[in-house]
């Protein structure tokens, strides 16, 4: 499979996929009354862009050695990851109906041995970035041309393991690695800057030897241009700070910390589905 062309047409496709993902994530979480919709919805446009505009993969061969890798470090956002994998064809879409049911393959946090397309097990924060770094280094050692993408939450950046990985990636010039930070400025309990402030995040990554780009994480043109751009002559890993809105797409959820793991009642569900069209 070749990398997607950046055309208006592909943006339409990505928009359609993102809408489908939001609808199905909403239904999964409503049916089970468990989940993390706020973080799902801030990240869904990033995932839709990756899976339908950027990544090289073949769902029939999830272990294909030349596949691009995507690591979902914010493993609680299964509403975004599982709907992306289902939409991409890694498993039948009706599996989404089993979300978190007894012995479901769709665990509350992703497990690579249960579900094709999951690169590593995540859930505890600060794990995906170092693993993605190892995948990228493996590619460098083997002379492979696959690329590795990892998405972390912004609150997740408070975990020290990220900074260990940031230092190693910058120092080793791991140019085939792209870190995407879902910068919705909210964590479970409060705003990030009122908890353990992260700003200036861009300067921090630059100081660690990264190339940093800041974009609107809901704007498909910017996402495609940034995530799909060839590595080219760049000799540094790429950090994409994607400014997003927690709960994006549902009016009463947007930018609300309580929707980190809030679940909709019947009335809220009906209202949300009315908006997600």
């Amino acid at each position, binding site marked *: 499979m070749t990398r997607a062309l950046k055309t208006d047409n592909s943006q339409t496709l990505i928009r359609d996929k993102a809408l489908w993902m939001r609808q199905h994530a909403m239904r999964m979480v409503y049916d089970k009354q468990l989940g993390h919709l706020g973080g799902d919805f801030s990240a869904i446009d990033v995932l839709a862009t990756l899976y339908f505009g950027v990544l090289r993969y073949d769902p029939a061969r999830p272990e294909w050695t030349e596949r691009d890798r995507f690591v979902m470090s914010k493993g609680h956002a299964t509403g975004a990851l599982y709907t992306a994998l289902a939409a991409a064809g890694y498993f039948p879409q009706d599996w989404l109906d089993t979300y978190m049911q007894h012995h479901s393959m769709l665990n509350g946090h992703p497990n690579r041995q249960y579900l094709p397309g999951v690169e590593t*097990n995540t859930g505890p924060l*600060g794990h995906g970035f170092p693993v993605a770094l*190892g995948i990228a280094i*493996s590619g460098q050692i083997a002379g492979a041309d696959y690329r590795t993408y990892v998405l972390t939450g912004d609150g997740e950046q408070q975990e020290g*393991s990220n900074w260990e990985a940031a230092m190693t990636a910058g120092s080793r010039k791991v140019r085939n690695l792209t870190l995407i930070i879902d910068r919705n400025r909210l964590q479970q309990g409060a705003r990030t800057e009122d908890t353990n402030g992260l700003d200036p995040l861009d300067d921090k990554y630059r100081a660690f030897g990264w190339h940093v780009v800041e974009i609107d994480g809901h704007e498909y043109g910017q996402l495609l241009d940034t995530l799909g751009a060839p590595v080219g002559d760049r000799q540094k890993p790429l950090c994409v700070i994607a400014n997003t809105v927690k709960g994006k797409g549902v009016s009463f959820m947007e930018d609300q910390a309580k929707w980190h793991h809030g679940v909709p009642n019947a009335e809220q569900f009906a209202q949300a589905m009315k908006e997600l069209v």
Partner: protein
Amino acid sequence: MAVAQATTAPGFDCRKAWAETLEQLAASDERIVVVVNDSVGSSNLGGFQTKFPDRTVNVGIAEQNMVGVAAGLANGGRIPFVSAASCFLTARAMEQIKADVAYAGFNVKLVGQSSGIAYGELGATHHSIEDFAWLRALGPITVIAPCDAWETAEAVKWAAAHDGPVYLRLSRMKVPTLDLPDRTFTPGQAELQRSGTDVTIIANGTTVHLALEAAKTLAEEGVSARVLNMHTISPLDTDAVSAAALETGAIVTVEEALDRGGLGGAVAEHTSATDPVPVQRVGFPGFMPTGSIANLFEEFGLSREGIASAARIAIRRKGA
């Protein structure tokens, strides 16, 4: 009667066997890489780094990252050997070992250097005596503590060929190499070092040599002690433990580790459920004081006389 004899006096640093074996394997298998935390020297990997600079991933003093990176390397098809002081490798990166290696099932080899109380004088922060209990709790990881240079080399070869996570617990204490006829290394299968009928001493790593010495003391008293080298504590050779319980009626476990949760814990769990016999556990009670290995071993009963004494107690408890 099989009786192991110590042949290489005054002893051999197993780290040399580990490093030489890995270099040999890496020469013929390009997938093998090492991941270290500024620990090339302490892991004896200078030669590896010289021969395979591109396959030496030094992440600096960052153990969480080190284990995560190793999981990623496995995802990319490499066979990573993570080598670091076991006190930091296990404690500092425990959640990464749990989530990224054991739970994810990645083909990562964790090699704990200078385990037990090898860093005796440096104090309890640098002792690694809880690692057996921690690693054994993670089912999918094979936990092996080789007892000499030969077994270390065999364990490294096996780990490289085995598809799954492994923890190798190495010491830097100089130990003799045991001489047994037709010796083979089979993970999960205890090695009979000495036959016996009155009591079984089960040891691993550095303590196997002490157990053999204790068996000689007991023999002088007319007590027949079986000695098992339980190099693999997870999965445990439960057949050998059951046979020891049924045939000798009393067991002593000896380990350079916490006296709970590791080898002694595993043996006691098994016997209590299937073949209840007295089990005397020789190990360390908790955070250890500062001291040389020799002095601490002596003080806490990891000695010829200490183990023989535990055996006498176990025998006395039979049928009590």
